[in-house]
C-alpha cells in the first residue's frame, strides 16, 4: 500500500492511497519500461538479465513511470526522491530501514510525505 501526504497526492491524480502489486524480483537498473503481465506472479522471474529483490528504490521509479501524472521533478531528483520528501516504511523513517535498499515485503505500507510547503 502506498500513501501520499503533505500535498504530494496532487501529483498522483489527487488520490492519497494506492494499492499496488509488484513482482518479487525486478531489474537491477530499476528499469520499468516493460512491466510484467498483470497480475504478476511472484514465482516467475520475468526479467532477463541481472535482477534484485524488489526494493523501495524500484518502487520510486515504478511510481514515477506508471502513476505520476505531472511534474516529475517535484517527486524525483536523479535516482531517488527529491530532498524534502520523507519516506516512511510501516510508520518508520526509511533512514532506519536502509532507505532505497529496503526490500519490500508483502503487506508493507510505504508513505511519501512532502515537507515543501514551508512554515
Amino acid at each position, binding site marked *: 500500500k502506498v500513501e501520499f*501526504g*503533505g*500535498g504530494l497526492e496532487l501529483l498522483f491524480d489527487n488520490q492519497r492511497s494506492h494499492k499496488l502489486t509488484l513482482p518479487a524480483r525486478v531489474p537491477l537498473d530499476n528499469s520499468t519500461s516493460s512491466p510484467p503481465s498483470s497480475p504478476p506472479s511472484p514465482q516467475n522471474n520475468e526479467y532477463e538479465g541481472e535482477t534484485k529483490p524488489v526494493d523501495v528504490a524500484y518502487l520510486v521509479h515504478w511510481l514515477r513511470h506508471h502513476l505520476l501524472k505531472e511534474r516529475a521533478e517535484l517527486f524525483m531528483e536523479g535516482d531517488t526522491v527529491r*530532498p*524534502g520528501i*520523507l519516506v*516512511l516504511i510501516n*510508520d*518508520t*523513517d526509511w*533512514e*532506519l530501514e536502509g*532507505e532505497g535498499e529496503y526490500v519490500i515485503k508483502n503487506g508493507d505500507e510505504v*508513505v511519501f*510525505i*512532502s*515537507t*515543501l*510547503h*514551508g*512554515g
Partner: protein
Amino acid sequence: MSTSCGNPNAESDALMPRRRKFDRSKLCIKCKINQGNIVIRHAVYCKDCFLPMMYNKIKRTIEPTINPTPEGPRKKNLNPSGNLVIAFSGGLGSTVLLDVIYRGYFSSRRPRGETNTLSEGKDPKKERVWKEGKVCYVEVCGAFHGMRDRTDDVRRIVERYDDLEFVPLRIEDAFDESWWESVDLILSPCSRNGTPLSALCNYLSSLPAPTAIPSTLQTLTRLLLLHTALSTHSSHLALGTCLTSLSISLVSLVAQGGGFNLKEEVQEEWSPDSLSRSKGRSVRVVRPLKDIVMKECAMYAWWKGLEIVGQETWPGARQGISRITKDFIIGLEKDYPSTVSTIARTCAKLSPKDHAVGTCILCNRPAQPGVQEWKNRISIRSLSTDPPVSSEKASLAPYLCYACHTTLTSKSSK
C-alpha cells in the same frame, strides 16, 4: 579526469562506505525500549517519545517569551500583557503551530477568571495563558492572476479549533485606507484612483526585479499581521517558522541586504512608533518552532492527522533569491542535517556594528545609518565626472533601511 583519491594503499575499486544516518542503534534514545520510528539529526526516537519531546521543546522556546519582562532566578506564573495572534499561512509550520498551541494553552485549560468549585484552589497551570486567541490568515491570491483563493479552505481548518477566532485578511488591505482606519492608524489623505487591488498590482509591477516581489509581499504580510495584533490588544504574534525555514530566511535576508535585521528575523519587539513604545503598546513576535526542523513538523502533522492546506508557489518564484536559497538548504539538510541548526546558531551570534538611526518607514524595522552614502560609494551613478546635482524632489530614500532600498531599486540583470 582521474577519480582516484590518490591514496596508494587503497584498492582502485574500493567504495567509500555510506555514512550512517543515525548514531548507535535503532532503539529509541529516550526510552531505550522501543524500536525507533524516526531519525532527527542522527538521534533515533520512537513515536511514543517523539511527541512529548516535541511539546517540551516548543514549551521551552515559547514560555520564556510570555511574560513582559524576562524571568529572574525564581520562576513566575505565565502572565502575558495581552492576547495572542497566531499567524497562519496554510503551510506545514503554521498548521503544526496552531495545533500545538491550541492543545497546550487553550483546549487543555479553563478560560482565565473561571474557577472550578470542585478544585482545591486556583491552579495557574490549569488556566489559559492568553485570555483570547486569534488566528490570522493573509490571502495573497490578489497579487497573482489566476491564483486560487484559499481563504475558505483555511477557515475550515481553523474552525476545528474552538475558542480561536479566525481573522481573514487580504494582501491588498495594505493599500486600503478603510482597513488602516479599522486598526486605528490614521493616514495622511492621498488622492488615488482605483481599488486597493489595482494599487497593489501597480506597486508590484513597478518593482525592478522578480526577487523583489516575494520580499515585498512578506513585508506587507508582516505589517498587516503586526497592526492586526496591536488593534486586537495582543501582546504576542506567533509565527510558524520552523528551524529549516528560519535558516532559509536568515540566509535569504543577508543575500538581499537585510543583515542589519538578523536579530529581528528571529524575535522582535515591535511598536508602530516611539509614543506607543513609551506607553507599553508593543507586540512581541515569537517563533515557537524555531528549534524544530521541518522533518519533525511533517512527522507531527502525519501522526496527528493534520490537514495541510499548503501554499501556492508564486509564479516567477523560481528565479527569486528566496527560492534558490530554499532549494539549497533543503538539499543540504538531507545530507548534513546539523548544518541547518548551525546556520541559525551562527546568525544568532551576529550583531550589527552600528546602532540604528531610526525605523525604516516601509518595513518598520531598525534602519542603519549611511545607506545612501554606501550605495553611492559602491555603484556608478553617472558617467560624468562632475559631482551629481542633488534633486529638489522629496524622496523616500533617506527613510529606508538598506534592504528596502535595495528591494525598490536593485534591477534584475536580465
